[in-house]
């Protein structure tokens, strides 16, 4: 599936919910399916800066595609990073770099995009795209 197809799938899933509570509950559940980062990669250098909770991300290249794993010590943050990884994992670096992230707004998580938001959704997206840029450079 392309990034856009996955995003549309997530938008569909979230459109079933009536209120914030159901959306958050679903996000928390998505966090439980997050491809967990191996303990050895849970290092300080893999922590995403700008988050009030800790978020670790690890990226590996498999046949021209990036595979992400992650973890967080906060449950809601874990749900957020799980959504991002579902969108970005197993994709070509260039597609990740070019990805439009407007779907965040459409699934009712716009408030997490505000610069004052301490969870750092913006930092997470930026960090995942940084990995993509780094791998893209290697491919050239």
């Amino acid at each position, binding site marked *: 599936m392309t990034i856009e197809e996955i995003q549309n799938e997530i938008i569909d899933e979230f459109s079933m919910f009536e209120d914030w509570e159901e959306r*958050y509950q679903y996000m928390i559940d998505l966090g439980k399916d997050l491809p967990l980062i191996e303990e050895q990669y849970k290092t300080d250098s893999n922590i995403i800066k700008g988050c009030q909770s800790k978020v670790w991300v690890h990226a590996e290249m498999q046949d021209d595609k990036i595979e992400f794993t992650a973890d967080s010590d906060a449950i*809601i943050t874990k749900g957020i990073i799980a959504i991002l990884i579902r969108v970005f994992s197993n994709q070509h670096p260039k597609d990740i770099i070019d990805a439009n992230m407007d779907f965040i707004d459409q699934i009712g998580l716009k408030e997490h995009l505000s610069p004052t938001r301490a*969870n750092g959704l913006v930092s997470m997206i930026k960090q995942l795209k940084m990995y993509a840029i780094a791998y893209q450079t290697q491919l050239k």
Partner: protein
Amino acid sequence: MFNVDDIRKDFPILSRKVNGKPLVYFDNAATSQTPQQVIDVIVDYYSNYNANIHRGVHSLSQEATDKYEHARQKIQKHFNAKHAHEIIFTSGTTHGINLVANGFSSLLKKGDEIIVSALEHHSNIVPWQMLCERTGATLKVIPMNQDGELIISDFDNLLSDNTKLVFVNHISNALGTINPIEHIIKQAHLYGAAVLIDGAQSCPHIKPDVQALDVDFYVASAHKMCGPTGQGMLYGKESWLKKLPPYQGGGEMIAEVTFEKTTYADLPHKFEAGTPNICGGIAFGAALDYMNSIGFDTIAQYENELLEYATQELLNIDELTIYGTSQQKTSVISFNLDGIHPYDVGTILDKLGIAVRTGHHCAQPIMDFYCIPGTVRASFAFYNTKAEIDALVAGVKKAKMMLA
């Protein structure tokens, strides 16, 4: 007679909604809300007599200067300083601390010691670390116990003839503990050390008397006591303020300038370079008028009721831990649901219209002491109600249900 419903009418913001729910504002330790009486003063300033002060010969400038200096006198009276010129207008508590730390750069030498407490805000740690780096002085720390109280016997042992400065907050922002500053000041003076008390968290709740305390420096922020942001005050004993060199150079702070030599203005202007926050100073005075019209004894008594009620109600929730359990504390409750990140709890509460603070509250050493990433902090002001506390308790229960 204190009636919270009447008081709430003074605060326009308290009737707004957040995320579709009535706002419950429990982040008062970060900043307090502003009553209409203070908002009116700000509007009046910009509508009727906005002008630069101290220099202009025109009437508007004169009027603004009078109001600004009158505000300084209100602050002097509030804190019971001996002279109005012992009150320096600052941009806030952090500015006041940095002003003093910078001033001591030229007075300290290698081997001198500075004592701070384990309960400090980063703003009362970092400037002293920087001062130590500049001067070669060493930083010593008064440790704390499990209840979040300073271990005062250890403080007494840290004091020596090398101690030049002691910096302690009156009340801890992260835990609400009221520190025994009377004892600390008295003991420090036995060794000739100067004492700076950070009053950012105390001034919204109690009325300090700087002469009775015999404190050398006391700093506060207007925005935590119903005033505007970007405004604060530094009290310093006249003798100390004369001894310290100016902090910043510029207009207002000079007596005479030639390219060879500048002589500095008298107190307080020596420390007030540039055009100050004129409106902020005047509004600070109005905020003190407002709080004094209610009365600090009344405020403290009511807030204590809120604290006791909230403590009792929150402790009824299983697997909830309160950090900072001193008998001497103000209306701040720092807590966690066991095994749940404070950020998660804060996010759910926000969706319910309840504003709390989460994180380390700029006091990482305290969080390290308890081995936690941070806490949820609910801090109450005199315009909060028991019904709002009920909403908080219900919100925490909901968060627990969703996150467990």
